[in-house]
């Protein structure tokens, strides 16, 4: 479920963020508790807590005393705008680099995008 190079808490935080983005955890609802996360992923409870706290620091989760961690209002929107900013770096630039290595021209790339986009 986790790979070795990135700290587990960052990977877990990324997985919860993904769930918020997809709408698995709608705004205003609770995410699984630290205990549930630790038990499910078989990780140290402190690591699960660290992941949740990182998301609290990012403003995506808030602690509701006695009830647990809730997805904040606007969490999905803020994640989307962050991911849009990363889109060029994460997807477009690597695509152009690889295309360059393989000698695929820009117009060929456009053709592919057009074709795949219609599916």
């Amino acid at each position, binding site marked *: 479920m*986790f790979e070795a*190079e990135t*700290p587990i808490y960052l990977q877990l935080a990324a997985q919860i963020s993904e769930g918020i983005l997809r709408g698995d955890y709608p705004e205003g609802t609770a995410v699984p508790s630290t*205990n549930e996360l630790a038990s499910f992923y*078989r*990780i140290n409870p402190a690591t699960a807590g660290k992941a949740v706290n990182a998301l609290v620091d990012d403003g995506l989760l808030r602690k509701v005393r006695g009830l647990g961690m809730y997805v904040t209002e606007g969490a999905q929107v803020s994640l989307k705008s962050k991911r849009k900013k990363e889109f060029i770096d994460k997807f477009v630039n690597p695509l152009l680099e690889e295309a360059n290595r393989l000698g695929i021209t820009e117009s060929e790339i456009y053709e592919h995008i057009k074709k795949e986009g219609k599916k």
Partner: protein
Amino acid sequence: MNAPEIVVQGLSRHYGNVVALDDVSFTVPAGSIVGLLGRNGAGKTTLMGHITGQIRTTKGKVTVGGKTPFENSEVQESLVFIRDNQRYPDDYKLKHALRAAKAFHPEWDDALAEELVDVFRLPRKKPVVKKFSRGQLSALGIVIGLASKAPLSIFDEPYLGLDATARQKFYDVLIREFHKTERTVFLSTHLIDEMAPLLEHVIVLEKGKKIFDGSAENAGNLAYAAAGMSPAVEKFAVGKTALTKHQIGSLASFTFAGAITDEIRAEAKAAGVEVSAATLQQAVSALGADDSDDFEETPYRKGGKR
């Protein structure tokens, strides 16, 4: 007693000329799961013997919840020590072993013990415990360790002989019980990559010395590997001290201590070698390696012609 903190300060132990522990200091925070790693003979069991009060401390200091464990009944009642070579009387069946354990642990949980006996499919009637397989003995240790609900639970390689399914069950129950009852768990393991996610913190011993003490997540900074064609790796290694060298034919992979810095990355790129951070297991293995462990060979070729 609440989950105690373990404090080890300047602990040394010599057996004749053999240094079992050399000025070891660390703290296991109350209510945490901490792993003790290192090669066989690194001093892990001796260290656990001191913490559990089975060995009298002669140099340095060990405290459990602020108290010296040796000949201290309060500390003894608060801890359970599961070791791989636990012996049982010849005629003991499962129920006798559990009854004996119950007598030593005031917080003993009968229902949990029964549940775990089923989870690990331990034979209740036959055979006697003495005739249990290695895996069954380990499972019995785990049952006793968890059902004791001891505020300090110490496991010395608790998984020997357990199959993958049983080990997963152990991890599941360990996390579940850790949530239910506050306890400090200190365990030694060689299954580092498998168990690292469970550990909040790891301590690595090598030849009696503590060589790492920190979050398992930071272990990526401990060591890295450089792999590629032998001449390129050899060139990259100039001016560095390799922990291990693994060479077969024209391929080479060397490990080095430390984290991958931007300089190292640039150097590796220039030399044409791939660098990658070591996993905790690779790092512990590399840091515990001697030159004599280096493995070099020329590949076997059919027909013997080159």
